[in-house]
């Protein structure tokens, strides 16, 4: 029997606002435990939530990017449960009216475009972080109250590969909208998987399980495959699947039971009385949309259709927003789209990878790159020299012009000067002229080498070649 997987994903993403969702405490990662905390975060009785407007703005950005309907009435609810990482004993979230509804994003798998429907996006607050030791646990409240958005897809995903592609794309959007670091391995983006299987052709959904604590996209993909396999084996042995929460164990590459649904919690959701519904200005929502950068899909299309880039190049370029932005700024200065793209995807990326750096950590600017490309085009420097200049540009905050000047790298293209130099060399290398006359073409290369040596490599190789050949002809006729 063939089975079909039915998967829905819930992604939690921490927003990189300056302060927390409902308190004025700062949000800075990597600080000492419990130093980014105020009386609100540790749920001192009598403290009250104050909505962080920036967090709402960030969430709206993502809503726009995911083509969602945005609720102009912002409402919050209480989700009640006791847990040691939940300081207030309830979480402020959006249950009745999520900020965003009915969105989608597009993924491409094997050249086929698939639309993944997104049911809702809502705002909430993060819990504290627990550190468990052998016989005690510690709680770090720095994370408590950090703004979160939760993005929930419809159960319309049917493979691990689709789920992975969805997560890649979502991550890209979170980075493009500049709302989060979106790092799964560091927990600023978290993914829970709801998965069930059913025989192909059957309409009715099977019993689902939930997989939590997935710390990389590849683990999501693996977990889906092994969990589907596990469920399949259960069904084939005529047993039934239990609705439960599982986790993926990297070591054994299996999913393991965390808790079953006997631990059902009644969250007793009800409206948060300390935050009255807030009417969002439609103009503000629109302004946020206008200020959004162009999203990766649109960029890809522009790069291919308008700039004539190869599809794979376009895809690679939009993968990272900073590279794509760099490309866009550079082409404002120099319309050599393909050349700009090749520099960025080639030398720039190779340099960054080799030195484990980000673009922002280097000294290169769109202006410098555009100048470098023009210098090569105009024959001012050779493409070989350009690579040397490039390396220096990455390290020192200097323009190509300064570097060329400093290193005396400017090409000598003046025919008069080159003729003089070549004549001089020919005068001292009779043997080479004879060799040439005897058909030994190697002599030309040797002579070019001498010219380069004499000019510190500054001689324009093409012009040098032309003059040299002409003079050799003259002398051997």
């Amino acid at each position: 029997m063939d089975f079909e997987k039915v998967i829905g994903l819930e992604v939690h993403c921490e927003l990189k606002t300056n302060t927390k969702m409902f308190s004025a405490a700062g949000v800075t990662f990597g600080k000492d435990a419990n130093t980014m905390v105020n009386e609100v975060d540790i749920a001192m009785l009598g403290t009250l939530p104050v909505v962080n407007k920036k967090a709402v703005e960030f969430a709206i950005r993502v809503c726009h990017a995911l083509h969602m309907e945005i609720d102009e009435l912002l409402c919050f609810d209480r989700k009640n449960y006791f847990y040691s990482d939940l300081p207030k004993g309830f979480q402020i979230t959006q249950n009745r009216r999520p900020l965003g509804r009915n969105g989608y994003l597009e993924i491409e798998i094997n050249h086929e475009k698939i639309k993944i429907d997104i049911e809702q996006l809502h705002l909430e607050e993060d819990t504290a972080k627990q550190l468990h030791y052998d016989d005690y646990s510690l709680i770090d409240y720095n994370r408590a109250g950090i703004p979160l958005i939760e993005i929930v897809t419809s159960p319309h995903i049917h493979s691990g590969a689709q789920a992975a592609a969805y997560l890649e794309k979502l991550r890209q959007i979170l980075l493009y909208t500049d709302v989060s670091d979106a790092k799964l391995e560091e927990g600023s983006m978290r993914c829970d998987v709801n998965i069930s299987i059913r025989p192909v052709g059957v309409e009715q959904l099977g019993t689902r399980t939930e997989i939590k604590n997935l710390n990389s996209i590849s683990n999501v993909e693996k977990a889906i495959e092994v969990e589907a396999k596990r469920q399949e084996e259960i069904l084939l042995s005529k047993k039934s699947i239990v609705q439960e929460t599982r986790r993926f164990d990297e070591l054994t590459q299996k999913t393991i039971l965390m808790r079953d649904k006997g631990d059902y919690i009644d969250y007793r959701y009800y409206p948060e009385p300390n935050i009255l519904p807030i009417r969002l200005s439609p103009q503000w929502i629109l302004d946020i949309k206008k200020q959004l950068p162009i999203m990766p899909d649109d960029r890809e299309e522009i790069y291919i259709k308008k700039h004539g880039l190869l599809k794979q190049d376009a895809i690679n370029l939009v993968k990272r927003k900073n590279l794509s932005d760099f490309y866009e700024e550079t082409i404002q200065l120099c319309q050599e789209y393909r050349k700009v793209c090749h520099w960025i995807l080639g030398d720039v990326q190779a340099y960054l990878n080799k030195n484990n750096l980000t673009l922002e950590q280097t000294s290169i600017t769109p202006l410098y790159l555009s100048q470098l490309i023009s210098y090569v085009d105009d024959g001012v420097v050779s493409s070989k020299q350009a690579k040397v200049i490039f390396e220096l540009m990455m390290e020192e905050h200097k323009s190509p012009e300064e570097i060329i000047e400093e290193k005396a790298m400017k090409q000598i293209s003046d025919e008069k000067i080159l003729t003089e130099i070549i004549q001089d060399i020919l005068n001292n290398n009779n043997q080479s002229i004879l060799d040439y006359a005897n058909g030994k073409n190697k002599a030309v290369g040797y002579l070019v080498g001498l010219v380069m040596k004499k000019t510190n490599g500054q001689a324009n190789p093409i012009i040098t070649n032309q003059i040299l050949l002409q003079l050799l002809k003259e002398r051997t006729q």
Partner: protein
Amino acid sequence: MIQYSIEELHQLYALEDYDFQAYTDELFKEIEFQQKRLNAFVTITKQNMITHKNNSLLDGIPYALKDNFHTKNIKTTASSHMLENYISIYDAHVFTCLSQNGACLVGKTSMDEFGMGSTNKTAITGPVCNPWDCSRIAGGSSGGSAAIVASGVVPFALGTDTGDSIRKPAGYCGAVGFKPTWGRVSRFGMIPYASSLDTVGALTRNVRDMTIVMEAISGHDKRDMTSSKKTVPHYLQNLNQDIRGLKIAVFHSISDTIKNKQIKDNFETVIQTLKSLGADVENVSFPNQLLENLLAVYTIIANTEATSHLACLDGIKYGLSQKASDIDEMMLKTRTQGFGKQVKTRLVLGYLASSYENQEKMFRKAQKVRRLIAEELQKVYEHYDIVLTPNSGNIAPKISDDYHNYSLIENHLCLANLTGTPSLTLPTGFVDGMPIAVNMTGRLFEEQTVFNVAYALENAFEYKNQFKREG
């Protein structure tokens, strides 16, 4: 020791040779004495009365805070075993306001545990006595504040009012008690009972003092999103006892249920007095079905909200913490031992009313009825400026009495909490040596009208500035 009003003290302080030390000594001697007699305080914060020369009428004025306002470095217990040794790490907004005005805190007053009660008998420090008869309750939950103001030691105290927790004890103790419009005063730093009903208010011995205190603590606070940005009027400056032409509604279905003849007569006298002052007083009908359900609606909403507000008390962060083998067990043990019977009863009720199976027919229904009540009251306020009711149908019960009075006459004051309206209780007489009172409630954010009517009425009676210190 003489009982002073805020304005009198202010004038005394202005004297060049005023002996602050002598006043402080006398004040705390009296506080100690009254504490022995009434058991009104949880903590006495002894400090010298001084003025800061800041032009505020509250400069150097002694006052007490209900023990559910956070006061940095001072114990804040909410009269619960759960917080018996808890010392605040931050200040409530209203405490900051009063401190900035130069007012001097003398102590934190006893209350029903977490504000849940109307007798003050659930306080961990024991019942608070009524100054007029120590065998009787002061009422609750702001019982300590009411008793200490009514004993004439301090001119004012702050309380909180979720159902009637300022006004009921004010009436029993013969003080003026006021809860403002919901949103008029920031609740930041007030230990909540139920956020959508909670208000911060005050107890004084006259209406002028009330306007001074309310002016000082009202206004927007950016830490409480529900606090209004509306300008705070100059309540004292605008006090006007000319109430001619003002329309006052009497809900006869409430006042008709008074059984005590003297209280009934007193209420009639109040109506006649208001008429003689030029107000139009009329009997108004309010749907009985709504009135009968006030207490049910209140109980469901207040206790549902309370379940989340008190959920933070889990033994992990602060307050009582019981040792156990695992974290769930620890929470369970802490909460079982930390909360008193009344609190536990109400929490269980709140859980029940908001649970998945019951939420639709209990909590959500209560919210719907609450909206209906507000709409109905709105209709009344289209024609009337004030709603007048008796404060209670009885004098303060004996401490030894089991107090289970679920009648409309004893529970109608929560109407002002369910609708957010400003409401003031004013003493208007005595029955069997115990003070009795009436309540007047106005339109949202029209506290001035309430103050004006109370001011006019207060001046027509002889209960202004009354106090009872011994016996």
